[in-house]
């Protein structure tokens, strides 16, 4: 369980995130929805420990170095092979090449396994970053728009790989997305952010089909059209 308590983040005096209280349960999947600049990435970075909140705390049972895997919105492809881009993340063990290869296969990148990852396309880089996150076997996955640049086939592969991984490990997933349909497919719960505030939080079906808040209603109108 992860408990967010009184977390605020300010940049040069402007408050971009204000979450008085939020709780993530073990083994569930959460989608963060909201407009550009609503604070999705900021919340994920705070949960990942990449940035510190201006105020407040995040308490997590699954603490420790090897508990969390975070995939940023713009993942980085290192200038060596795709295979090494994945193995570099896995702790030394005899079968880490096999683990990496199967993760790369799961995202449909086997043919590019020896390619220089710094020269990949945006969607390819995202697929590799996703393979890397799956391969390191974390209990908590924080994914910032993991399929924003992938093609439809990539979305399909990544979602299947994620659900598979969750089925095997019972991990917790918190991901940002701009696709309500994806939130529907993947998440148990949806958290709807507006200008740094949680406008609505509940079961995916509930929030996506019968939004209560004005903000979520307005946002989802674009989807229904």
């Amino acid at each position, binding site marked *: 369980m992860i408990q967010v308590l009184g977390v605020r983040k300010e940049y040069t005096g402007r408050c971009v995130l204000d979450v008085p209280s939020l709780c993530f349960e073990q083994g569930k999947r959460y989608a963060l929805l909201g407009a550009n600049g609503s604070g999705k990435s900021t919340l994920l*970075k705070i949960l*990942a*420990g*990449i940035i510190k909140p201006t105020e407040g705390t995040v308490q997590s049972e699954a603490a420790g*170095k*090897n508990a*969390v*895997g*975070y*995939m*940023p919105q*713009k*993942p*980085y492809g*290192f*200038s060596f092979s795709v295979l090494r881009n994945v193995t*570099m*993340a896995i702790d030394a063990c005899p079968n880490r090449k096999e683990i990496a290869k199967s993760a790369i296969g799961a995202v449909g990148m086997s043919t590019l396994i020896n390619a220089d990852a*710094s020269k990949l396309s945006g969607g390819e880089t995202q697929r590799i*970053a996703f393979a*890397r*996150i799956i391969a*390191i076997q*974390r209990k908590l996955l*924080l994914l910032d728009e993991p399929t924003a640049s992938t093609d439809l086939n990539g979305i399909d592969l990544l979602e299947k790989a994620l659900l598979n991984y969750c089925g095997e490990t019972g991990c917790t997933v918190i991901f940002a997305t701009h696709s309500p349909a994806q939130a529907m497919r993947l998440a148990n719960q949806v958290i709807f952010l507006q200008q740094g505030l949680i406008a609505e939080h509940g079961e995916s079906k509930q929030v996506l089909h019968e939004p209560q808040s004005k903000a979520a209603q307005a946002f989802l109108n674009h989807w229904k059209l």
Partner: protein
Amino acid sequence: MQAVNDVAGLLFGPDDELRKIIWLTLRMSFFSVLISSAVGIPFGVILGCLKFPGRGLVIRVTTTLMGMPPVVGGLIVFLILSNSGPLGHLRLLYSLEAMVTAQVVLITPIITGLTANTVGVRYKQVAETARGIGLSPSKSLSYTLFECRRQMIAVLLTGFGRAIAEVGAVQIAGGNIQHKTRVMTTTIMMATNMGRFNTAVALGGVLLLIAFLINGFAHFFSKEEDA
């Protein structure tokens, strides 16, 4: 035609004075860059990647020093090394060591500033991904440096190019003493003043060629990565 022959004779003929001057210049530039990068690269990495109080001020000071007029650098080293200066007892004035010291004063801020910029930008891109997969800060940093390797070579070449083409500081600190501290640029100045244009042209040509090669390499190393 005669002039071309004369210039070639100076460079490749039996008298090895110009070749010794070129060799001394290369050695001076090499050691200057070596020492400047031993100081400037670690300092630049710290400046580019770590946040600490006063960082903004240090960056501004470094940027200012990057543009320090070479004669001022030479003057500072001259004052320190001259007989009445704090390090006068070392008797280093008008030596290769004095010229290298002056160059280090000029080049270290340049290498520091360029490193901070290059590594800092890359670290921002690498760090989120690296920390997201649980790598330690020191590992993130070493991956960042690895990712910057080509641009860092370009930074070193830039420093070398500055050192080899610089004249004011080495003139003041080195004194342009024959067989001892006479380098290409100071020789060109002197030869021109004395009307020995063949010597000046010969060294000028070599200097231009070296500058061209350095620029070519620097361009190659800084570009390729994004190609």
